[in-house]
């Protein structure tokens, strides 16, 4: 009995009218935890009831505390009939269980109903008294901290990184139980919400246990997913990285501390001058491992098929690096081999953690779903994932790496076919960080590979490469070999040297497929998959070259299955790594050189491509240093040098090689060119001032403002033409994505210059009708079941998008600067917090000036509303000084928010940090699941209106929870799941959304200098006035 949960219901406001006669409501509240329920008194005839209940106390196991949510139901008392439910609030009390997180939950929560949405708000106070339980065999894992953030959280430091933890829980989906035939949609939705909440609680507890077993105290990069497998059940699975985190003492912001406790370990041998060739480390010859799933489906081992990335190895060359490397490898391997899966879900690492990066490894497998018979023993699902992870591991080995970083797993389900995918980046890690790494090799490897380029160096053996690739000497240190291109799933390491700016690169692909059932379908899909991956890869490669870049970060390939098509979408951020060689150009190889007109066509195409590359170079500011001269004296073998010298003329060679390696056919080349030209034209027409990337930070841009906006955008398209060709589909799909980006740019045009970071595209191809039918049959007796879909519904979801407002470097021209100023004004005025720091004088100046101009703007707006002209405004505009205006504005703003405490502004961002701020405290993980259903779709503004309000409601609930925990921001926010089903004929729609993130408290960097916030407004305005005059 180690916990006492206390809850108090304080008040409600804005309740809906439940009694039509009096236009009022007699509300009371039920508070439920586990099987215990308490009730408040009925507060009669009010829309703003004040219950002020006593403390409701629940005495419960901490196991329950972790699993169960606190369930608050607001009802309308009815004397004669059953009480009507107004709505519910689920409060996850997990954050209260950790001593370092929040201590109390207190605040206004939106009352949510799955049919009506948000209906008023309720003020609740929740506390937990926890008694420590030191029982070794306990089932709970209170106190283990969870972070969605895929890097070491800002106010902690990693003492140890233990490694991969995973867990999976299955259950029957209440939506498909027999009881769903008789209960109301509301009851069924609530059962589902509750079940999922329970399951994710259980999952967290189990993972927490594993972490404790490993000796850790936190899970970083916690990634939880739902697989709605329909009739075969509901799977909730999670992966993460177990760590031991130490809290940093606030104030001392040493990010990099520490690791090896024991510098004089026997293994830290002084570098031997022996030139030993690697023995144990040489990777085993890679054999395409074929996974056979239950139904003859194959996972594609893409690495064997596609040249994922260029590589090479330089073990034999480095003077001392060779033996050291070997040692290192042995060490790390021994450290990691004890682990089943040396995987890390992190994408951002402490400096020195990553030693080398091999490349992207991924595995997919196609499975047929069947009913989960015994929910307590989810062996099949476990086995499936096990297989995939094994494969990933072996891929990593083939690349000469012992670990996989930036690891993630996903599924896509279409009827009974399920594709499981896992991907990550093979890497060599510094063993200092592992537990066993306390057996640590403490030597100065970093000398061998300078930090800014070390991670680019190949980890595998040059003579034993798993695939053909070109190797050159590192352009940075000139000592080790680097591949010509590098693909990774992680974020750009902070220490990496980058030339120019980065940009978002996407490959999009559509493949038609015959409609089929069961096994046949699965086979067809698994046969298509390798080709899709190959083509996506080619597209990425070409687009990368077109942008004149040589590395991809944050690569995410998503393949989704529809009934008669497969969609592939790969997004990544391209950058030019200074350490890697300059990419060559692209050349078109024609098949029929005899044809003159064709030749001409080809040559014009070629010219356009070359022009584009040149323009992109300008656009992304890529001016690779001409490093040829200095080469002369450097200890590079002749062979290599000659290669280097050829770097400018090399393009043609490389192209031919590229062509060879792809074994191009004529049509293919043209198609590629078409796609290239398209993207080229679009990117060129892109308005200046917009940057986009899908990683956390935009490479090459460092001046962030604190103005930050997060958006979610969802789009659904219907294809009217059922028999489209592959190419037609491709074109349409590409257009969709481009258009989406375009419309984002348009919407955000007022924020220019800005950067869209962490752009995360998700696509799905749902079989609308089928899902509909299944969902609604229980409520509909007529068996008009299989309405064959005449239309294919392509659903392009684009979620989790964070917009940053950024300054282009201060070296930009005047006009640009002007723009940026406007921006800063915008962001500051919206925050009501002057953020500009006096250190960056030029920028600041402008921002002040601009703030004045925004005030003037505001004034003008006001003046617009004024008819007869009030004394106040006229006088102030006459004087032309911003001061009185400020005052009047502040007066007005105070007037405008009369009702007690104003709502706390909660920022949300998919990034793990907020620019120009400091995260002071992590308050706990936010993991929420909502269902919304409507039976009056048209009245709610159609599908768009329905989804719009639902997403807004989800945001509101997330914000309310964070505010109640005492936080003011959500970082690493992500919308994991957004399943939308509709049936316009029946006027119905249903949507499921799962969101997660970390609640934090942040302070602005400028706040730390103790300026009384009230006065600042006036002060800055005076400075601004001075600045303008």
């Amino acid at each position, binding site marked *: 009995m180690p916990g006492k949960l206390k809850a108090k219901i304080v008040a409600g406001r804005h309740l809906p009218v439940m009694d039509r006669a009096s236009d009022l409501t007699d509300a009371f509240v039920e508070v439920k935890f586990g099987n215990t329920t308490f009730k408040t008194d009925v507060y009669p005839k009010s829309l703003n009831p004040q219950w002020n209940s006593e403390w409701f106390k629940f005495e419960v196991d901490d196991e329950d505390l972790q699993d169960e949510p606190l369930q608050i139901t607001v009802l309308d008392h009815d004397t004669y009939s059953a009480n009507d439910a107004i709505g519910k609030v689920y409060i996850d009390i997990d954050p209260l269980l950790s001593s370092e997180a929040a201590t109390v939950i207190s605040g206004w929560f939106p009352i949510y109903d799955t049919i009506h949405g948000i209906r008023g708000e309720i003020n609740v106070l929740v506390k937990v008294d926890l008694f420590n339980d030191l029982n070794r065999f306990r089932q709970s894992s209170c106190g283990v901290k969870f972070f969605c953030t895929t890097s070491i959280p800002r106010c902690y430091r990693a003492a140890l990184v233990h490694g991969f933890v995973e867990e999976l829980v299955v259950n029957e989906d209440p939506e498909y139980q027999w009881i769903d035939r008789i209960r109301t949609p509301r009851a069924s939705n609530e059962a589902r919400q509750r079940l999922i909440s329970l399951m994710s609680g259980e999952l967290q507890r189990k993972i927490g246990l594993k972490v404790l077993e490993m000796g850790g105290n936190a899970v970083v990069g916690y990634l939880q997913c739902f697989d709605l497998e329909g009739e075969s059940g509901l799977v909730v699975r999670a992966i993460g990285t177990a760590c031991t985190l130490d809290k940093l003492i606030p104030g001392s912001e040493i990010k990099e501390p520490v690791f090896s406790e024991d510098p004089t370990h026997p293994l830290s041998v002084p570098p031997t001058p022996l030139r030993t060739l690697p023995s144990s480390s040489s990777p085993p010859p890679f054999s395409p491992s074929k996974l056979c799933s239950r139904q003859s489906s194959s996972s594609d081992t893409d690495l064997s098929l596609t040249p994922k990335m260029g590589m090479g190895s330089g073990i034999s060359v480095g003077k001392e690096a060779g033996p050291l490397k070997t040692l290192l490898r042995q060490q790390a391997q021994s450290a990691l081999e004890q682990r089943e899966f040396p995987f890390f879900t992190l994408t951002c690492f402490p400096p020195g953690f990553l030693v080398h990066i091999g490349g992207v490894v991924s595995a997919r497998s196609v499975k047929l779903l069947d009913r989960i018979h015994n929910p307590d023993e989810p062996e099949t699902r476990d086995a499936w994932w096990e297989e995939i992870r094994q494969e990933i591991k072996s891929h990593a080995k083939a690349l000469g790496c012992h670990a996989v970083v930036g690891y993630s797993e996903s599924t896509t389900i279409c009827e009974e076919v399920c594709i499981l995918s896992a991907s990550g980046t093979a890497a060599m890690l510094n063993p200092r960080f592992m537990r066993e790494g306390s057996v640590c090799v403490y030597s100065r490897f970093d000398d061998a590979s300078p930090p800014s380029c070390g991670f680019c160096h190949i980890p595998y053996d040059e003579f034993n490469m798993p695939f053909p690739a070109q190797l050159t000497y590192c352009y940075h240190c000139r000592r080790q070999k680097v591949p010509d291109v590098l693909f990774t799933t992680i974020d750009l390491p902070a220490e990496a040297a980058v030339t120019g700016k980065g940009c978002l690169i996407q490959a999009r692909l559509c493949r038609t497929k015959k409609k089929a059932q069961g096994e046949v379908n699965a086979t067809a899909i698994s046969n298509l998959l390798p080709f899709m991956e190959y083509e996506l890869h080619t597209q990425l490669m070409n687009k990368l070259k077109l942008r004149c870049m040589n590395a991809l970060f944050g690569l995410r390939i998503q393949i989704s299955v529809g009934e008669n098509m497969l969609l592939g979408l790969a997004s990544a951020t391209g950058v030019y790594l200074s350490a890697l060689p300059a990419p060559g150009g692209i050349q078109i190889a024609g098949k029929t050189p005899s044809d003159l007109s064709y030749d001409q066509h080809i040559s014009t195409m070629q010219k356009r491509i070359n022009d584009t590359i040149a323009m992109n170079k300008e656009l992304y500011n890529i001016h690779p240093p001409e490093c040829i001269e200095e080469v002369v004296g450097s200890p590079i073998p002749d062979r290599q040098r000659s290669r280097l010298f050829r770097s400018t003329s090399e393009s043609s060679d490389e192209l031919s090689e590229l062509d060879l390696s792809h074994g191009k056919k004529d049509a293919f080349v043209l198609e590629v060119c078409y796609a290239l030209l398209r993207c080229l034209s679009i990117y060129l027409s892109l308005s200046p001032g917009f940057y986009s990337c899908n990683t956390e930070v935009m490479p090459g841009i460092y001046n962030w403002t604190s103005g930050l906006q997060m958006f979610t955008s*969802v789009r659904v398209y219907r294809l009217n033409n059922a028999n489209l060709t592959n190419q037609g589909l491709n074109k349409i799909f590409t257009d969709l994505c481009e258009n989406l980006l375009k419309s984002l740019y348009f919407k955000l045009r007022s924020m220019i210059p800005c950067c869209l970071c962490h752009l995360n595209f998700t696509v799905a191809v749902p079989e609308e009708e089928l899902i509909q039918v299944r969902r609604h049959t229980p409520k509909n007796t007529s068996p008009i079941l299989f309405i064959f879909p005449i239309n294919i519904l392509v659903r392009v979801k684009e979620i989790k998008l964070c917009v940053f407002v950024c300054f282009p470097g201060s070296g930009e021209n005047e006009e640009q600067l002007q723009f940026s100023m406007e921006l800063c004004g915008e962001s500051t005025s919206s925050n009501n917090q002057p953020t500009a720091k006096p250190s960056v004088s030029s920028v600041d100046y402008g921002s002040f000036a601009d703030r004045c101009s925004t005030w003037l703007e505001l004034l003008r707006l006001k003046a617009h509303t004024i008819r007869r002209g009030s004394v106040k405004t006229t006088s102030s505009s006459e004087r032309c000084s911003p001061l009185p205006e400020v005052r009047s504005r502040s007066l007005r703003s105070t007037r405008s928010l009369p009702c007690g405490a104003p709502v706390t502004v909660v920022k949300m961002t998919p990034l793990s940090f907020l620019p120009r701020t400091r995260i002071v405290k992590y308050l706990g993980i936010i993991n929420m699941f909502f269902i919304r259903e409507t039976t009056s779709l048209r009245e709610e503004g159609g599908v768009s209106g329905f989804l719009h309000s639902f997403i807004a409601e989800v945001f509101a609930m997330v914000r309310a929870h964070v505010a109640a925990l005492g936080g003011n921001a959500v970082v690493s926010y992500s919308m994991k799941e957004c399943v939308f089903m509709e049936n316009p004929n029946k006027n119905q729609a249903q949507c499921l959304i799962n969101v997660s993130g970390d609640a934090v408290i942040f302070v602005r960097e400028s706040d730390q200098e103790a300026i009384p916030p009230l006065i600042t407004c006036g002060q800055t305005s005076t400075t601004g006035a001075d600045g303008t005059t």
Partner: protein
Amino acid sequence: MQIRYAVFTPILCRTQRFNCAINNTRLQMLFTQTVPGAIYLLATVSPRLDRYITLVKAYKMSMELDVFVGNTTIMDMEVYQLWLDGLTVSDAVKVRMDEGALLECEANPEVLTSDTMDQFRTFQMCERLLHSPTKLGSQLLYQIPAQNQIILIERYYEFDSVFAREVLGKKLSKGTKKDLDDISCKTGITLKSCRRQFDNFKRVFKVVEELKGPLVENIQRHFLLSDTLARDYAAIVFFANSRFETGKRKLQYLSFQDFAFCAGQLISYWTIGAMDSMMEDMDVDLEKEFLNELKDLKVLVNDKDMMDQHKILVCAALRGKIKVYKLMEVNFKNLSRALVNLASKLTHTKDVRDLFIDLVEKFIEPCRYDRWTVAEITLFLTHYTNAAHCLGTFRHQMIWDRYMGVIKSSQCSPLLHLSLIKVNYLSPTPSISSVSPPVNILNELNTFLICKL
């Protein structure tokens, strides 16, 4: 098959046509180049107007759902104005195109439509909250920066004075609401916008009607409006409550602002709150007792001696100061009688309602007939009022001052001043002229297109 069309209107002004022509060619290029999967027909109809009509036909794929939600609700205030003006999405897109929105960020019509739809949807969802502005600050659903909230509210409650003029003094009931389409036709304001404005009036009226204390402050407290806007609303509420007749032909020359000014005067002189701010009652109603006491003023015209004395005093003061002195001397008795009779009649509700029309008929028109200038009227009224104080036997000074305070200042108001001049030259309904011709033309075109297709 889905057929969409878009109309681009080059602005008829000659200097701008050149620019627009460029825009148009640019637009066409954008159309044909960047919108995929669509066939475009370019046709020029009604060459007289030189309008391009682009038909967008045969979409291969249609957007089913398009949603864009931000954590902080972003609102484009220009689009907000279009929404408030009651435009449909397609009309709003047209207006934005004309304003050159397409030139920003290389947008195409599709993008613009999607953006407009999103914005309109956002506003529609916020509308519920705008009905009780105090809620907007405390609600959790939308995170809107405080200064945006102020603008949202202020703009939502703003109204067209042309429209307000039409509704002024009418009962804010369902019946009036049904007549809104007539007003819409007459004023050129869209029906949707009319409805919003009407509902705003009604909402404010309902909330404030029963409240105690100063009217303007009540409105400000409950609707968070700026001072000026609150004053205008106070006028509307006051007129709606007392139901003053304002629709008569003879009163057409008076604008909303004129009446609003008068309302302000009435509130500050003739209501209970005017005399005693601590009184329990409110500003909305005229003080019954005061209106009854106005009867006592009759003595000024009934008592022959007093009237003569009054005349002598006024004449003495005005001699040589006004041009129309002669006429004034002749007409003094008539004018005085008119004003005093007006006062004594105000016990009846009917006569209260006709206050303005009576004032115009009995006093202003005779003056205008005699070609008085505004300054002269002002001077006359000042001395007329003051002279009564010197009458030894006249005992109702307080009432007299309250009464004449309104009459005097109403006449003095700079706006009335203008309208007195205006009345000589302008047609009785100056408001109609504000109907913008482009709207008509667009409607015409639309109907034409619909017929064609």
